[in-house]
């Protein structure tokens, strides 16, 4: 699986793609505006086109109205830090911003494992009203502890997320968080989490409103399933999402025998390596009112892989 297309909506807002000569607010201000450079930009001797695009956006007073901003492809040789600096510097121009996507980059533009993230923590003080935060790419990513008291949705898509990032999210105080999705990825692409890293997700004590928990795309998906099968947090979740990873019958059995399974409304296991017989058992959970997504079975028995790595 890879990203072929850019986001078309974000946090419920229609996405506006625009060129320098266009008016990004032709369709109004209740939109998610993109700032991305395009193919062929950023040759030698050319000014950074992400900055050019951002500066052009700032010429419009309507930035003060927009709820959502999407950071697309930035200079492929640079980390995101200069983008973060620019956003922080211009924070007063985005007083209503509540949704931010850092890295809406397709695999054509840059493979997920090549995206150079960086320290995003300056954003927390600059945009304290953020409710939706999506990040694509785990390389170099540093969140410190996230401090966003209004954050409802946090989503990090990565082919390999460092354990320190995962641990910092587990330790973050996120009183309003309802949905958390982490693509943990594969060891060969930088995933370093073990079950010990996930300890805080067992009860998600600092996330009292959590309803959707995704620990996805992992090459230790069975161990995660076994661990989460007894996690007290399941008693208050609607959805447990363990999709996209190397889940086999072992992990599926742990979930099937979970003491808390019946509290869930949905179990998302799509892209898995379970046998037909195990899938049939999982599908029987529908009779107990639990929706189980067992789509995209992977047939390979000897060579398993996560959905998103490189």
């Amino acid at each position, binding site marked *: 699986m890879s990203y072929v297309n850019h986001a078309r909506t974000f946090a419920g807002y229609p996405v506006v793609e625009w060129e320098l000569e266009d008016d990004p607010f032709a369709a109004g201000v209740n939109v998610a505006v993109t700032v991305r450079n395009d193919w062929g930009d950023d040759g030698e001797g050319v000014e950074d086109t992400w900055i050019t695009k951002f500066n052009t956006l700032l010429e419009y007073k309507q930035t003060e109205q927009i709820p959502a901003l999407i950071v697309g492809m930035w200079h492929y040789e640079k980390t995101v830090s200069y983008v973060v600096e620019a956003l922080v510097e211009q924070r007063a121009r985005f007083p209503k911003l509540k949704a931010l996507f850092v890295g809406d980059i397709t695999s054509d533009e840059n493979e997920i494992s090549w995206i150079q993230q960086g320290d995003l923590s300056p954003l927390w003080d600059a945009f304290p009203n953020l409710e939706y935060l999506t990040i694509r790419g785990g390389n170099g990513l540093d969140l410190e502890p996230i401090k966003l008291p209004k954050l409802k949705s946090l989503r990090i898509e990565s082919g390999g997320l460092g354990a320190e990032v995962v641990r910092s999210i587990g330790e973050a105080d996120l009183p309003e968080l309802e949905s958390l999705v982490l693509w943990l990825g594969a060891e060969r692409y930088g995933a370093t989490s073990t079950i010990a890293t996930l300890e805080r997700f067992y009860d998600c004590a600092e996330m009292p409103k959590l309803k959707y928990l995704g620990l996805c795309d992992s090459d230790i998906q069975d161990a995660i399933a*076994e661990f989460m*099968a*007894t996690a*007290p947090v399941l008693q208050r979740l609607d959805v447990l999402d363990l999709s996209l990873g190397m889940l086999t019958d072992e992990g599926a*059995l*742990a979930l099937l025998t979970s003491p808390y399974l019946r509290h869930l409304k949905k179990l998302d296991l799509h892209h898995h390596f379970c046998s037909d*017989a195990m899938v049939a*058992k999982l599908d029987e959970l529908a009779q107990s009112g639990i929706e189980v997504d067992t789509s995209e079975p992977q047939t390979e028995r000897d060579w398993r892989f996560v959905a998103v790595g490189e």
Partner: protein
Amino acid sequence: MQTVTADEARQRLLAGLPFDEDFQIAGELDLSGETSLTAISPRLQQAWSLNLEGCTHLTSLPDGLHVHRLNLNGCTALKQLPAGLVAHSLQAKNSGLMGLPDDVQVAYKIDLSDCKALVSLPNNLHTGSLIIKGCTGLERLPDGLHFYFLDASNCTHLKTWGADGHVEVGNLNLSGCTRLTYLPDWLDKIAQLNLRGCTELQQLPANLTVVSVIEVAESGLTAIPPGCADAELRWRDVLVDERIAFHPETLTAQEIMDEANIERRRVMLDRLGYEAFFKEAQAKELDRDVDPGGIRRLLQVEFQDKDRWRRDEPVVCLSVICPSTARHYIIRVPPTMQTCRQAAAWIAGFDNPEQYNPVQET
């Protein structure tokens, strides 16, 4: 019931301090490697996780303990578990357990690998995955066993199945169960079955269905029932057919030469035997000399693999006659061997043929 932090519980338990009332721990109590610990306070009622790995002097646990994950690996002095134990997973590899209590409830997994003292399991045991590999003291499985996965590999004394039982999904590893002579009739439909090295197992129940994989290398089987025909038949993990597995004498050298899959070709060669193979194959003679048994020949067969990245090494064998029995032997040697003398030295364990100067061969 009182709730105690894992840290506090740990300190009190290690110091041997008493608890005034029943307590629970919201968290993981890790006492692994505490070799001086002999018992856990009977006041402990619940914990998310209890890790007692390597507590080699532990002899008892509290009655009625409820714990999600219980780790008793290497608790060699622990001979039995308490009554009323409820867990999601129980690990007790290399422990001293001789059995499990009748009322034990472990929903997901019980791992009793290499519990050499284990002699019995309770009737009507229900669990997702039962791992008893290397439990060499176990001769009999209980009545009413209910499971998804069973790993009983290398249970070398296992002979008898329970009178009834039930399996869901069904992944059974019985490899190395050298005394097993039958599978029970109640084992009707399963996904995977590993019977490698079940030398005394000569047939399977006629009603048995295996849907995914059946491994039969070095078993006593000579055929599989019709319900297994759709499963992948494997020999040491290599996909084979019934002829390779059960009628290797019908294979021809040409078929082996023509087999494109190198792994399968090796299994076919092994099944047919080098003697039969060299009788038929157009072998090239690399060397010839005379030893006390008669003429020795170094023979080579090369395979014509098209894909140069997946080319198998040639088969090189020494053909000898035993001086005392006059029997003819074909012995495989490394493909780098160039002379009979060198090959004979290699077989005797010498890398340098100059050092191999037998005084007398018998």
